Structure formats: structure tokens, C-alpha cells
């Protein structure tokens, strides 16, 4: 039963990366859009694109935490004790991001706009970096079992964490660029389509390079993960690589469809690959999922939640999606009333 809950946890992580990640990635492009004049058009585009879903994607993150602390409490205690610093920075970054994104719209003068714009953009990069570093710390076996605190510094400043952090920033930037290409095309904004298409290609190439570098980093720094990635998770790694390459080709050739799906599958298969590679451990080589699992009653309750979610949330989500696709929910940013 702990396996079923672990799968649910994995799906939530994938959903957060795919949906929430793009929000963060948009902030990255905001940061790199240049001066107030040059960057105005892309910034407007970004604002338009994430305005309606402002911060709602944190639902996935909350769900991840809830699953962790109910179903694998021992691992959760170890993680929060050990990785206190990056998790705190991520939490503060989420507040800063939410506040400064809205603040930027509310203030008039350019100086303040820039200040809060910088806050929004910087925290958009900081949060995924910290999340990636946390993932790196866990994956490389630096979080001890038993609700104990590990090394408060080296648990998140180490080769695998740096790789995880940089990879997370690059991946969300890539996803966001791909989504923004699609959005711009829908709005028939050729200039922005081209603008973000070029950036998506660069980001995709960067993710590829990081992947190659990662092979060497993980072999030296996270042997258990490396071994998993090169054996039982290998099909997923290959799938991710193929999808990533396919998406890159579609982007370079400026194809109208397919790119978005391939990009999502590429990112998702890397995350699933990570999970398969460190299986059966939640904290590699010290604590397995089944050993960390809560009593049956709690796990059952969580699976009931998932079933209810399938019965309530999924139809609601489909309704939202259908209404949106039929154009019955005209876009109207929350702040742009």
C-alpha cells in the first residue's frame, strides 16, 4: 500500500513541476528580458500568460507536503530538519514572488515597478533552485533516517544539489518558454512567438548539456542514483532524451503542434526516472518507502482522498478545461479587472 501512496506522491511532484514549474520559469524570462523598454513586450506577454492562475499552482506543493507528512512522517521530519535552510528560502521566496508580482501591477512609478519586478523575477529563480537542491540532497543520500538532522550545509551545497538546482531552473525556464511560444502563437503575436521560440531552443540545449554533465556528477557523487539511472530507470532516461530531442527539433523547425506535449513528457520522464532510480528508498540507502510508511489507517485515508479527488477534482478540472477551450472563460486577469 505504501507503494500506491508513493506513486501518488510522484504524480504530485510531476504535476507541480509541469504546471507550477512553468510559472517559475516565466519569472526567469522576466528577469532576463532586459531594460524597461526592451523588455516591456515580453513582460506584458508573461504577465498576460500567468495572471489568471496567479499562485494557484501551489495547490500541488501543499499536496506533496500533506502526503509526505501523513504517509512518510519519519522521512518528512528528517528532510525538514536537515534541509531547513533551502526549504526556508523557498518558502520565503514563494511569499516574495506572490507579493511582488501583484505589487508590480499596483504601483505606477517605474522605479518601484523595477524594484518589485526584480523581486518577482529573482524569487522565481531562487525557489526552483532551492527545490532542485533539496531534491539533490535527498537523492544523493545526504538526509539521514530516523527523524535526525543531517549536515545543515553540505546537505544542500554539494555537487548533486547544485546540479539539481541548476537543472530545475533550466527545466522550468524551458517549459515556460515552450508554453509562451504556444500562447503567443494563439494570440497571433509573431514577434513574441519568435522571441520565445529562440529562448526555448537555447534552454532546451542547456538542459541537454546539463544532462550530459549530470552523468559525470552523479557517478562521482550519488552512486546509488547513478546505478539506478543506468539500469532500471534507463528506459525512462532514454524516453526523456528522445522526447527532449524531438521537442528541440520541432522548435527549431518552428512546428505548430506537438512541441508542448513532448517537452512535458521529457520533463516528466526525468522526474519519474529519478524516483525509479532511487527506489525502494525514500531517503537513499537509509530509509525505504515501506519502512517510512505510516500505519495502514492513514495510508487508506490518503488513498480515499485520491479516489475522491478522481471523482470530484478531475471532473471539475475537465469542466474548467473544456469551458476554457470553448472560449467560454474569456481571459481576464485577476488584477486587470
Amino acid at each position, binding site marked *: 500500500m505504501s507503494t500506491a501512496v508513493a506513486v501518488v506522491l510522484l504524480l504530485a511532484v510531476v504535476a507541480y513541476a509541469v504546471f507550477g514549474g512553468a510559472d517559475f520559469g516565466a519569472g526567469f524570462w522576466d528577469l532576463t528580458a532586459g531594460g524597461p523598454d526592451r523588455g516591456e513586450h515580453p513582460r506584458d506577454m508573461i504577465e498576460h500568460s500567468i495572471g489568471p492562475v496567479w*499562485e*494557484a499552482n*501551489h*495547490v500541488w*506543493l*501543499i*499536496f506533496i*507536503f*500533506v*502526503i*509526505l*507528512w*501523513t504517509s512518510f*512522517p519519519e522521512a*518528512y*521530519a528528517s*528532510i*525538514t*530538519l536537515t534541509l*531547513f535552510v533551502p526549504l*526556508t528560502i*523557498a*518558502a*520565503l521566496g*514563494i*511569499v*516574495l514572488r*506572490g*507579493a*511582488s508580482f*501583484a*505589487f508590480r501591477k*499596483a*504601483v505606477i512609478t517605474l522605479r518601484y515597478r523595477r524594484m518589485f519586478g526584480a523581486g518577482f523575477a529573482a524569487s522565481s529563480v531562487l525557489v526552483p533552485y532551492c527545490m532542485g537542491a533539496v531534491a539533490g540532497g535527498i537523492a544523493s543520500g545526504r538526509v539521514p533516517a530516523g*527523524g535526525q*538532522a543531517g549536515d*545543515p550545509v553540505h546537505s544542500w551545497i554539494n555537487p548533486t544539489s547544485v546540479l539539481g538546482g541548476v537543472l530545475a531552473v533550466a527545466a522550468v525556464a524551458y517549459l515556460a518558454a515552450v508554453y509562451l511560444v504556444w500562447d503567443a502563437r494563439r494570440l497571433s503575436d509573431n514577434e513574441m512567438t519568435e522571441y520565445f521560440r529562440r529562448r526555448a531552443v537555447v534552454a532546451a540545449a542547456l538542459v541537454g548539456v546539463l544532462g550530459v554533465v549530470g552523468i559525470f556528477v552523479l557517478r562521482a557523487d550519488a552512486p546509488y542514483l547513478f546505478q539506478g539511472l543506468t539500469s532500471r530507470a534507463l528506459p525512462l532516461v532514454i524516453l526523456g532524451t528522445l522526447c527532449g530531442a524531438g521537442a528541440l527539433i520541432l522548435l527549431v523547425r518552428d512546428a505548430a503542434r506537438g512541441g508542448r506535449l513532448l517537452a512535458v513528457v521529457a520533463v516528466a520522464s526525468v522526474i519519474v526516472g529519478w524516483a525509479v532510480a532511487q527506489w525502494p528508498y525514500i531517503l537513499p540507502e537509509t530509509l525505504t518507502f515501506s519502512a517510512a510508511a*505510516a*500505519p*495502514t*489507517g*492513514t495510508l*487508506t*485515508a*490518503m488513498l480515499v*482522498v485520491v479516489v*475522491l479527488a478522481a471523482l*470530484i*477534482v478531475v471532473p*471539475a478540472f475537465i*469542466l*474548467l478545461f473544456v*469551458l*476554457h477551450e470553448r472560449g*467560454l*472563460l*474569456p481571459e*481576464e486577469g*485577476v488584477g486587470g*479587472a
Partner: protein
Amino acid sequence: MTTTLSALTAIVLVNPVPWARAQMAFTLAFHIILVPLGVSWAFMTLIANYRGLRHSDRAALILAQRWSKFMAVTFAVGAVTGTVLTFEFGLLWPRFMGQWGEVFGVPFGFEGLFFFTEAIFIAIYLFGWRRLRPWAHFWTGVPIVLAGIFGSISVVAANAWMNAPTGFTLDSNGNVVDVDPIRVIFNDSMPWQAAHMLVAAYLVGGFLIASVYAVGMLRGRRDRYHYLGFVIAFTVGAVATPIQMGVGDGLARWVYSNQPVKFAAIELVPTTESDAPETLLGHLNENYTVSGGIPIPGLASWLSDPSTGKQTVVQGLTAVPPDQRPTVQQINIVHLCWDIMVGLGTLLFLLAVWYAVSWIFRRRMPQTKWFLRAAAVAGIVAVLTMEAGWVVTEVGRQPWIVYGHMRVEDAVTANTGVWITFFAVVILYALLGTTTILVLRGMGRRFRQTKGFTDHDTPYGPSALTEASTEAHADAGEAVG
């Protein structure tokens, strides 16, 4: 070198308990203000929406549409502060979550479900104004109300479990070996606490929103739009107030029976006695004598159980060892906050009575400026009442984090840098709070500047507004500021 080292040691050795407690209290105090808006605003919006459709009332429709937009902003801010809270459970209280997460956490699974549903339907309702059929659109708002109700019940169930921990079995080492999720969620304290918080959400939400329109009316904007905004919200708050007094009374009796130490702190009863007085204000001294205040003889005993009247025995603070009761300072906080909650709640009740009497005898709301002035303050007063009540239940539980099972100092993180995160959180939340108010004001101003609604913004199809009503709607925006 030595000085740097000792300075460093001083920083490193700061006791995390008070800072963790302060940070948790601060972030919860902030979040709890957003809760009533998330829970009850949708209900009020639907009342306006219903009126607008049923009676072809354009002002009501525009009110509903604007409320839905403000609501979406407060929901988004609530999502951010709620996310921070989920971080904090682990970052500040890892030992609590490590040992009890599998029990305490269960209600949060269901809360996540309702929160998700709420988010989806807020999006549909918010963006569906122009293109959905009017009644279909109205019905997409109903799940928001239901999800808000069940979501808040789920969260309060978790807090109630900390007061009345049930639904688990421990082995000889004190580890949880078996969990009964039903007993965890439906713990003994849950029905009373959930009802109390739910009614509070409607009470506070109603008075808070009404106060904005009261200010607008005091500034001379006496149009239909303001009238509706005030009457709908204030009526919800006024109806909730007497219900809340009944629920609160029931909860207090539950505390009397099940958490005698908290009850003794509330009533400031040092030693076990019958004929215990109800002390208004006053404080407890270090030697457990009560100074100051106005004692009303026998009332605390009588209220605890009217059937035995003054003979009812109230357990005193000294009946348990000092390490199992709150500190004197905490006891005084609990007692003062209790007085604030009951006192301010009574004032709100009197205001609600004034409003009700006017409706019953004159068939209209009170017309005097003094009523509007009182209503303008009632929003803040309601928030303070709720905050005070929450302090009573949280501080009154000390020194326990899980009543009778785990103490706060055994739950806290080992990280000694919490004082730094505390200050960072305070600064960021100040920024977030300012942002929220500025954004809401900015939206109000924009509503005003567009001179009512352009075609683009008109709910349910066109029909140009007359010049007069356009003016009225233009003013409405300002009220929100």
C-alpha cells in the same frame, strides 16, 4: 577572533522555542484574517448574484461581479500564506510532524481536496461572467461555498485533534502503530470547534465587508450599489452573531469538561472551588492570587453547568503540577483574550440587535450616522474578536502541542536560526499585506475610472448603463479603498 566566536555562539545558541512559536503565531494570525473572506465571501456574492438574476437588479449583478474579482485576490493571497504554513509545520515542528504527522495530518488530506475544488470553481466563476448562461454561471459558484465550508472544517478538525487527540494506538515506546482516520477527524473537540470557526468565518466576513460599504455610505455614497453591498454583508454578520454566542457557550462547556486547565486559565480560577466568580479583567500574580478586575460571584460556576448552579465545582490551576499548566504570563494572556472575545462579541451582538429591531419595526436599516459609524468599526472589531478567540484556544493548551501527549518544547526544530527566519517572515508578510490592500484599492480605483462597466465588462450581455447609474457604480469602486 574570540569575540567573533562568542558572538557567533550567541547567535547559534538562541533558543528556537519562543521564536518558532512567535513565527507560527504570526503567520497563523495573518492567515486567519483571509480565511473568513475565502469561506463566506462566495456565499454573499451568490446572494447578490441571485438577486441580480431573480429581480433583474443590475446593481446587484455588478456587485456580485466585483466581489468575485476581489475574492479571487484574497484567495490567491490565502493560497500563498497557506503554502507557507505547510512549510512551517515541518520546518518549525519537525518532531511533532515526525511523530504525529500520520495522525494529525489526515484531515489535511481532505482539506487539500476541498481547496483544489474551490480553486477550480473560483476560476470558472470568475472568468465565466461574460460567456456562460446566467443561471449555469450562478450554479458554478455553489461548489465554492461548499468547498469553503468543508475545507475550513477539515483544518479545524486537525486543530481540534491537538486539543482532543484520539484515533490512534501507541506501542510501548510511544510510537504510533495504528490509526483510525474517522476517529482522528471526528475527534471529541471537532464538532464544537469546527462550528465555532465556521460561524466565525461568516460573522467576520460579513462585518468586515459591510464595514467597507459603511465607510462609503458615510462619505455620502448612498446609492443602491452601496446599499446592497452593506445590507447583504451586514445581514450575514448579524445573523451569525447570536448563533455564535450559542456555539461559543457550548464549546466553553466542552472545555470545562475536557480541558479543565484551559478553563481555569480562562476563568482565572487558582484553586479548585465551587461558587467560582467570573472575573472581568484583572490578572493573576506569580503567587497565584488574583488582583484587580470585577468579580461577579458564582457566575463562572453557574455558567459551567446551570443545572447545578453555584454549586458547580471548577477545577483550579493549582490542581495540576506547574509543568502541566501554562505559565502565569500565558494564563494572563488567555484570560485577557477571553475577556476581549466575549466583550467585543457582545458589542457586535448589540449592534446586530439594533439592526434587527430597525428592520422589524421600521422595515429598513437604521438611518443614523452613528449606526454607520459603529458598522464601519465593526469589521476590525470582528477580526480582533476572532484573533482573541484563537489565542484563547492556542495559548490555553500550553504547554502541550498534543494535549496530554507531547509538549511544545519536544516538538520544536533543533535549528537555532529560527529567530532570523522570524524577522524575514515579518518583513515579507508586511510586504504581502501592503500589496494585498494596494491591489484591492487599485482594483476599486480602476472600477471607478472606467465609469462603471464598459461593454467588455458587463455581466450577462449588454444594455448600456444610464448616466446616473454609471456615476453610482463609479463611486462604488472607491468604497473598497
